[in-house]
């Protein structure tokens, strides 16, 4: 157990371009979501991941397709990175049958059985016990799959965090706890929500292998996640990784952001994970002139297509309102 950062992985710049593309994809997708929200095409609560892309992209890169993910309401990025199509996510936010949750879930509840994407949980820390159970299922059946469980640092004050860490550690389950520490829970700064702000230290108190990593560096994120996933898959029990990141936007679409200064946000924007990787790739000669522009074009095309798909999607007939409440109808 340790609570210091691992030795940074040797930068794998060959894969860097794929990671850049993926982060850009998340970013542009959400930027479009903002427009669509203003146009009232998307409704309800919507939480943006902008600024935190390195975490989901880095972490998902270390999962196998048959590994599971459990996330929060701030999960557009995780869903995209886990392989859900932009189409199915956008259609979901438009409330369409073609959406990944048939339009029942919206932004906060993306699901995909095929990709083992277990949601979008909008109760803070509510997904952690599920992740423990998914991992328990794998262990009981002798499968070498891992469950990745994402949550914010705010969730660590909830009782469910504590119970889940203890169960996972006690039973040595293959679950990886990925804490996205963006320093705020809505308007509550970490220092005002945790008596112990070194979160990896907090996790280590459960005898869980824990460390922190720079959440603005996608390569570091990927390396840290890989290490955690490898340990969990090899039977080493759960791991906990704190990703030190920041959300560039408001908590949700209704947040006056009274709790932090513009300067602070600007400072963090200097560390934009996309720009950082772009610079690094460019400097290393891995990104030729025009390649970034080409990525942008490709992504814009994908998103345009997703929006068109969502626009054309169908509405669940009202007669089917209660059709999916129980799988078995009573006789």
């Amino acid at each position, binding site marked *: 157990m340790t609570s210091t950062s691992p030795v940074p992985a040797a930068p794998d710049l060959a894969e860097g371009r794929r990671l850049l593309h993926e982060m850009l994809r998340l970013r542009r997708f959400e930027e479009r979501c903002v427009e669509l929200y203003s146009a009232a095409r998307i*409704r*309800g*609560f919507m939480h943006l991941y902008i600024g935190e892309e390195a975490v989901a992209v880095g972490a998902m890169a270390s999962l196998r397709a048959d590994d599971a993910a459990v996330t929060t309401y701030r999960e557009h990025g995780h869903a995209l990175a886990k392989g859900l199509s932009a189409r199915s996510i956008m259609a*979901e936010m438009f*409330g*369409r049958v073609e959406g990944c*949750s048939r*339009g*029942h*879930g*919206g932004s*906060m*509840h993306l699901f995909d059985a095929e990709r083992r994407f277990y949601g979008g*949980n*909008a*109760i*803070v*820390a*509510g997904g952690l016990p599920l992740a423990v159970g998914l991992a328990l299922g794998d262990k009981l059946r002798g499968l070498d799959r891992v469950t990745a469980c994402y949550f914010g640092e*705010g*969730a660590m*004050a*909830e*009782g469910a965090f504590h119970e889940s860490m203890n169960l996972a550690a006690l039973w040595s389950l293959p679950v990886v706890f990925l804490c996205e520490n963006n320093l705020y*829970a*809505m*308007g*509550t*700064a970490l220092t*005002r*929500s*945790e008596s112990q702000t070194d979160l990896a230290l907090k996790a280590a108190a459960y005898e869980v292998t824990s460390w922190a990593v720079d959440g603005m560096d996608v390569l570091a994120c990927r390396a840290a996640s890989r290490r955690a996933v490898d340990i969990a898959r090899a039977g080493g029990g759960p791991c906990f990784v704190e990703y030190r990141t920041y959300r560039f936007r408001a908590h949700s679409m209704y*947040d*006056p952001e*009274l*709790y932090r200064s513009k300067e602070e946000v600007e400072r963090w924007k200097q560390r934009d994970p996309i720009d950082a990787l772009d610079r690094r790739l460019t400097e290393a000669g891995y990104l030729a002139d025009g390649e970034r522009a080409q990525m942008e074009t490709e992504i814009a095309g994908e998103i345009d297509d997703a929006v068109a798909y969502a626009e054309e999607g169908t*509405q*669940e007939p*009202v007669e089917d*309102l*209660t059709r999916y*409440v129980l799988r078995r109808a009573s006789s």
Partner: protein
Amino acid sequence: MTAPAPGPTTTTFRQAYREALRDALRRDELAFLMGEDVGMYGGCFGVSTGLLEEFGPERVRDTPLSEAGFVGAGIGAALNGMHPIVEVMTVNFSLLALDQIMNNAASMLHMSGGQFNVPLVIRMTTGAGRQLAAQHSHSLEGWFGHIPGIRVLAPGTLEDARGMLWTALQDPDPVLIFENGRLYGTEGELAPDAGPVEIDHAAVRRAGTDLTLITYGGSLPRALEAAELLLADGISAEVVDLRTLRPLDTTTILASVSRTHRAVVVDEAWRTGSLSAEVSARIMEGAFYELDAPVARVCGAEVPIPYAQHLEQAALPQPEDIALAARELVQDHG
């Protein structure tokens, strides 16, 4: 020469709730507000904006995400002579504090043989209708109405939004106030001297003769709208606003039904086991021989509330649904 009394001012439920909080914090030095993001953020729904600046962080206390912890802490502080106002951001999260509410707040007085009362107020947002989907759209105030040892309030008018808090705060027992989220932005007129209101009685919000619509909170405006629709059909609907969900004011309910002989209960919660069932059962027990037709219920569909707007709206009682049920009651059971 006396200055003319100032006329009513236009305000919203949000502002009315905020004024009530400000007033309470000014007048009762034992009172303090505590909950997630009530301070720096200004309140998840903007209710407490500005209060931190006015009263400081001791009396407008932000809490970590830990519903059981800070609701329980509110109970403890109340046991220790304070008058905490605990905000649970929404009823959806109150499930995490239910043990504290039922097993401590509600039980303490009786269990201790009358020694320990708990002068606590818990506020929370309730209701669906804003496309927040399954986990953020519960209407569980009816559940709380099942618990002996607490009072449950549900403001449906600006007067009650402004006035219930103070009365609740002076009450020696735990009082829960359910604020319907759809109403926060609703505007209306409020007298500038609006103040505390009593919390023991239901209110007839509109008099009528042909049937009684019984409801509360977020469904009150819809029932009043339905009454308008019915008027166009020549049906005169009385509208009873329960206001206090526990203890229920059965007297007012029965008196109205005994005049109109027909009733529709409107409740946006899932139909089975909602408060509407209790109201229906009480009418059965207390006014059976007055009834010209069976009491009808218009409730939420029994489904985890879906995100898609058309589905969500279909899951909730609309004025047209209420009017339809009322018409059937009057026509088919003429």
